[in-house]
């Protein structure tokens, strides 16, 4: 299982800030597909990806216990 963190608009759309998903050994890209099949999260394709608090790309292969965060365009400051 991996933890999936959602923020801002994505969090509201999913109705959850954290999901536990079976995605050990799969890529982030595949995880996104899986999420899109369950949740109305079109904007996830505009989000950056972080794995274990570091920016990562879609090709990253996930391991058990990883924390994947989808980072919509940021607007701090």
């Amino acid at each position, binding site marked *: 299982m991996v933890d999936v963190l959602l923020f801002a608009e994505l969090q509201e759309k999913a109705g959850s800030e954290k999901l536990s998903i079976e995605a050990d050994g799969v890529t982030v890209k595949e995880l996104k597909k899986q999420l899109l099949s369950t949740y109305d999260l079109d904007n996830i394709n505009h989000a950056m990806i972080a794995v274990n*608090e570091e920016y990562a790309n879609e090709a990253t292969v996930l391991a058990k216990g990883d924390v994947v965060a989808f980072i919509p365009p940021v*607007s*701090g400051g």
Partner: protein
Amino acid sequence: MEKNFWLTSEPIEINDVISKVVRPEAGAINTFIGTVREFTKDKRTLYLEYQAYVPMAEKKLQEIAEEIEVKWKDTKTAIAHRTGRLEISEVAVAIAVSTPHRKDAFEASRYAIERIKEIVPIWKKEHWEDGALWIGDQKETKSYKEQLPTKEE
């Protein structure tokens, strides 16, 4: 351990940020403070809400300071960012950079706020009289004519 980069749901005291960069080697401190603006053109903001991916955001703030140290030598940086609900005129972000010479302080502080808007996982939701919206990318280097107004647009 001294923490120079932090997110907080409590009001930010500017002096807490500035005091972290005061030092005998510095002759200049530049501080940038982002406050909640009431009007953008004719649109009235009631309040803002900031959400953050806190541990990653604090790490990224520290990385920005490290970038600054590479670009301008002998700098010291501290940054605090607020989370939660903010009323008009409250401080959303406070950046302080101390340097030996003033030119670097201005440049580094400006760099810090631009980088925050690029890489730090913090999101702002604007609440207006007629609705609310999570605001996307608001870097001043791009045009957002087609989007809803944001604090800095």
